Each structure stands twice: as structure tokens, then as C-alpha cells.
């Protein structure tokens, strides 16, 4: 990419992170009485948009603050996205750091380590700056609230936003479509709107290569998301039973791997595993993935878990059931949908991991993402089409499963 301002990277990140933030916001909104508050505010003469901006959004933001930080950190520290879409010269700090780490010239380890620290500082400063901006906005809006201003100055602002959202989604879908097209293309030169010759060759040709990458990706994804889910359930249940002491602090600890740039600490992890002789084993890669899958699983599960009315279990135990039976048959059954969704998110996160598999796997553990990224930097877009599609397909299957299974279970009853 030749653009100095990194616009393609920015756009790519927006497309990638939008579904995540949207999903998280949807879950968070369930905790606020949205419709009654909107009705109430409108009855005082505020337009729907004004009501949303002044009343709902200030209540929503604290609930999604942590996911927003996660997105901010990811944007600053992503290496694979920067490689594909970011500016070439100079590259983003995260990408430069990785190149220095991987360089054969060992002396470059020094600037690499320095850059890692710098990246950490940069992230901390960005998070701080973000919070300062948010608080300033909140403060100035309080002044506007006191003036009781009801006019719709928001119409332009929200007009832009509401058109931007479908455009972003469309862009994302279009790129997936193009990816699909490329995977069945034989020849597609620049001026043509569509490929000039089609072929299934790409898929056939890679029948020997794809299975290994697919295999490894699937094994790592399934095991790490399964483990993460079990751990998440165990942690949440222990919190419920033994009192939620230190809840907030432990939550920040869990999110730590997401708030620290991957490139910064994975290198240290790799050296550590090398010393222990554990590098390159699939179990270590699973463990490394778990570090990142677990926070996302918890993040997507915790709100629904805590929102479950405690009285269901109380009633069940008062009916004489053993606590294990209650837990299994009542609590987990009621939480089936959020549990499956958290699992699907875990799978998606694992599939998309690039650096952990690359660095900890030491080349012996393959993954769809690694293949896709290295191919994308090259010239053959047809192979990228195949790998990219597969990479998008696996999470899609997981989400479909997570959405369909509860319905099937409900139908059976």
C-alpha cells in the first residue's frame, strides 16, 4: 500500500472491528431500560436522536469502555493488518518492530526491544488521550443539558453516521464477494470488471496443502475455545458462589493480554518456551491462543451470565435438587445461547490469530491465517481467495451452529 496516511488500514480496521463493537453494544444495551427512557425523554420534547445521544449513549459508554480499549490496542498493535493494508514506507510501529525482530541481523534485536517498549507507552498514552477526550465531551454535554437545548443539531451528525454504517457493512461484504470470485478465477486482468476465465483449479490444486493448514487451525481453534469456555464457566461460577470479591481487578487482569501489544510480549514468550524446549509444539500454540481467546470468551459471556436471575437457581435448589444438578440442568440450559455464542467468538478469535501461531509455532504449526497473510503479500490473488474464504468460513460455521442449535433444542421440546 502506498498511501502515506494509512487510509486503507484505517478503513480495513473499521470494517473488521465494527461487528465486534456492535455485538458488544447490543449485549450492553440489554442492561439499560432503553425503550422506556427514550419514550420518557421524547415526551419532554426531545427528538429521538437527541434522546439517544444525551441519555442512552452516556449510559452505554461505561459498559463498553473495555471493549473500546481492546479495539484501540488492537489497531495500534496489529501486525497482519498492517502488513496487508498499511503503508509501506515507513510501516506502522508494530510492523517495524516485528521486522526488526525477524531480521537475520541480531543487532536489530535492540531497537526491536526498544520499539516494543515504545509501543507499550504509545498504547498507554493513546488510551489516556481517548479517555480525556471522552470526559471532555461528557463535560461539555452536561453544560448543554443544563441549557435544556432540544433542537436537532444532531441531524447532520447522525445522518453521516447512519449512512456510514451500511456503507461499511457493504464494503465488508463486497470484499468477501471479491475474495470468493478470486478463488474460482483462472485469469482476471486489471481493466476487466469480471474474471475472463474461471476455474476450480485453485481449489483442486491446493487439496494437498490446505488440509494441513485447515487441520491445524481447526484443532487449535476447537481446543482453545473449548478450554476457554470451560475456564470461563468455572471462573464465573466460582465468582457466583464465593462472592464477587476483587471482581473488577481480576477482570482487568484477564483482559491484560488484550491490552498489551502482542508483538511486545510474544517475543519474550517465544524465548521462554525455547529455553523450556516447548517451542513448535501444537500444545504450546494452543496455550498461547488461550491467552487471547479466554478474555474474549469471558467478555462475551459475563454480561449474560450476570443478568441471569439468581432466583431460578434458588428455586431449583429449594425444590430439593443437588446443586450440581441445578447447575447443569437449570443454569447452563438457560444460558445455552450465550454459551454457544461465546464459544463461536472464541473460535473466530483463534482463527484470526497471526502472531502467536507464527512465533510460538516456529513454523511447525500451520494456520489458515498465516498462509493467507503470506500469500496476500504476494501476487497470486487466487490462492488468497481460497485461504481467505476458508478463514472466513470457519467462524461463520461456528456462529451458525451457535445460533441454530438453541432453536433446534427449543423445537424438540
Amino acid at each position: 500500500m502506498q498511501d502515506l496516511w494509512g487510509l486503507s488500514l484505517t478503513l480495513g480496521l473499521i470494517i473488521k472491528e465494527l461487528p465486534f463493537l456492535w455485538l458488544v453494544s447490543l449485549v450492553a444495551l440489554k442492561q439499560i431500560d432503553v425503550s422506556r427512557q427514550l419514550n420518557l425523554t421524547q415526551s419532554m420534547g426531545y427528538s429521538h436522536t437527541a434522546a439517544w445521544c444525551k441519555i442512552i449513549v452516556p449510559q452505554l459508554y461505561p459498559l463498553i469502555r473495555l471493549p473500546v480499549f481492546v479495539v484501540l490496542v488492537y489497531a495500534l498493535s496489529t501486525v497482519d493488518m498492517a502488513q496487508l493494508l498499511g503503508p509501506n514506507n515507513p510501516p506502522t510501529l508494530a510492523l517495524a518492530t516485528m521486522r526488526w525482530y525477524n531480521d537475520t541481523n541480531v543487532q536489530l534485536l535492540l531497537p526491536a526491544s526498544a520499539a516494543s517498549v515504545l509501543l507499550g507507552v504509545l498504547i498507554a498514552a493513546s488510551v489516556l488521550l481517548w479517555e480525556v477526550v471522552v470526559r471532555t465531551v461528557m463535560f461539555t454535554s452536561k453544560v448543554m443539558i443544563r441549557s435544556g437545548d432540544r433542537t436537532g443539531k444532531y441531524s447532520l451528525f447522525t445522518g453521516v453516521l447512519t449512512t456510514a454504517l451500511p456503507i461499511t457493512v457493504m464494503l465488508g461484504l463486497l470484499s468477501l464477494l471479491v475474495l470468493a470470485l478470486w478463488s474460482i478465477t483462472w485469469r482476471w486482468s486489471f481493466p476487466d470488471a469480471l474474471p475472463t476465465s474461471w476455474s476450480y483449479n485453485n481449489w483442486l490444486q491446493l487439496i494437498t496443502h490446505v488440509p494441513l493448514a485447515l487441520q491445524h487451525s481447526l484443532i487449535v481453534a476447537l481446543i482453545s475455545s473449548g478450554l476457554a469456555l470451560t475456564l470461563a464457566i468455572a471462573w464465573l461460577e466460582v465468582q457466583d458462589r464465593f462472592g464477587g470479591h476483587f471482581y473488577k481487578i481480576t477482570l482487568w487482569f484477564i483482559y491484560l493480554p488484550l491490552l498489551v501489544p502482542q508483538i511486545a510480549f510474544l517475543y519474550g514468550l517465544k524465548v521462554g518456551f525455547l529455553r523450556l524446549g516447548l517451542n513448535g509444539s501444537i500444545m504450546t500454540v494452543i496455550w498461547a491462543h488461550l491467552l487471547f481467546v479466554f478474555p474474549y470468551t469471558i467478555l462475551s459471556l459475563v454480561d449474560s451470565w450476570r443478568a441471569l436471575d439468581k432466583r431460578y437457581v434458588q428455586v431449583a435448589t429449594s425444590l430439593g435438587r443437588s446443586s450440581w444438578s441445578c447447575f447443569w440442568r437449570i443454569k447452563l440450559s438457560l444460558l445455552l445461547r450465550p454459551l454457544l455464542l461465546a464459544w463461536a467468538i472464541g473460535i473466530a478469535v483463534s482463527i484470526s490469530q497471526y502472531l502467536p501461531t507464527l512465533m510460538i509455532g516456529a513454523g511447525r504449526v500451520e494456520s489458515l491465517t498465516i498462509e493467507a497473510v503470506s500469500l496476500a503479500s504476494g501476487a497470486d490473488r487466487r490462492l488468497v481467495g481460497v485461504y481467505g474464504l476458508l478463514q472466513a468460513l470457519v467462524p461463520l460455521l461456528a456462529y451458525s451452529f451457535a445460533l441454530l442449535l438453541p432453536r433446534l433444542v427449543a423445537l424438540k421440546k
Partner: protein
Amino acid sequence: MSLELRSLSVTTSTHMSLFTPVDIVIASEEVACVMGPSGVGKSTLLNAIGGHLSTHFSVTGEVLLNGQKVTHKPVAERQIGILFQDPLLFPHLTVGDNLAFGLSSNVIGSKNRRAQIEQALEQAQLQNFYHRNPATLSGGQQSRVALMRALLAQPQVLLLDEPFSKLDLELRHTMREFLFAQAKQRNIPMLLATHEPAEAQAANGPLVILMPA
């Protein structure tokens, strides 16, 4: 100021009426009561008048405010205030800011506005509560603030959906008297949904009894 309901009824998406059509005129300073068995649709009637009906329902008949049809106007333009069962004080604003939010934009100038808010707090016997966090207030105090907030918006009509049902008897009595006094002072009609005959008696106004259709 008057509120008139002409053959007002609410139908579901399958075109079934929830209750028999309502015809009533409520003049200013009058507090009308809507009564009926549980589940008949008192809240739905209030939502229909205020414009908050969910999309599952549709309105038949007319709602007239001071002789003008408002049945299909957007909520923000109707000037019909509503008070729900829960005070619904905005948790991210202080008590004073909640009131400031409700205070009509007709009142200009920060000094003026502040004065009106302090006056409202005094009327509600909540002086010096400007900077309090709503979560630290008792149920009765929250109800009073919610009521003042609704009134500060200078609505033409106030709808109340069993607003005092969660308070104890004595507090309910005090709030009721306060409410009736405000109706007289601000010269607006009010419509109160309730299932307490005592409240209807105390209101001494027009009575609407909803019957299932």
C-alpha cells in the same frame, strides 16, 4: 387546555380491539382516572395517548389536545408528558441536572433556569438536593423528582401510569395531594391510571373504566 379522547381504542396486529372505545373530555385542573381489571390495557391506553405505542399495536379513534388532533404526531411534538411506574431518573445525571434536562427550553438564561429548578426542589421539599446522585435517594424522593421533572417540561397534559404504586400508603397519600395541587397550579389536565378506588375518589374527576372488548 383540554384533552379529548374520541372513540379511542387500541388494536393488535390481528385487528382485535383490546378494550371498548373511550370517549372523554378532560378539562384543565381536572385529574381523570383510568381504571379497569389487570391486563385490560390501562398502560397501553396511556401509551396510545402519549405516542409510545409499540409497533405491535395500532390506534383507532382520535386524541385531541386543545381541539387539535395529535393522534399521529411524533412524541417529541405532542407536549404530552408521561410518568411511568418507576421514577426512571437518569443515572448519569445529578438530581439537579435531571431537572434541568426536563426544564422546558422556553426558560432562557442559566440564572433563570437554576432559579426555577431550585423552586421546583423546594416545592418537592428537596432543597439542597441539586448535586445528589439519584441512586442515593429513597423511592419517595425519586418519585417526587420524577414528577417535578415531568412538570418542568411544561407539558399540556400529564399522563401517569400507576406512579405511586411502589410507595407505602402514607407516602402515596402525600404524593397524591401534591400531584392534585400541581394540576391546579399549572392549569393542566391529568390522566391517572390506577387500580386503587381510593385514588379515583380523591381525584374527584372524570372516570374512565376500561372493559375488555
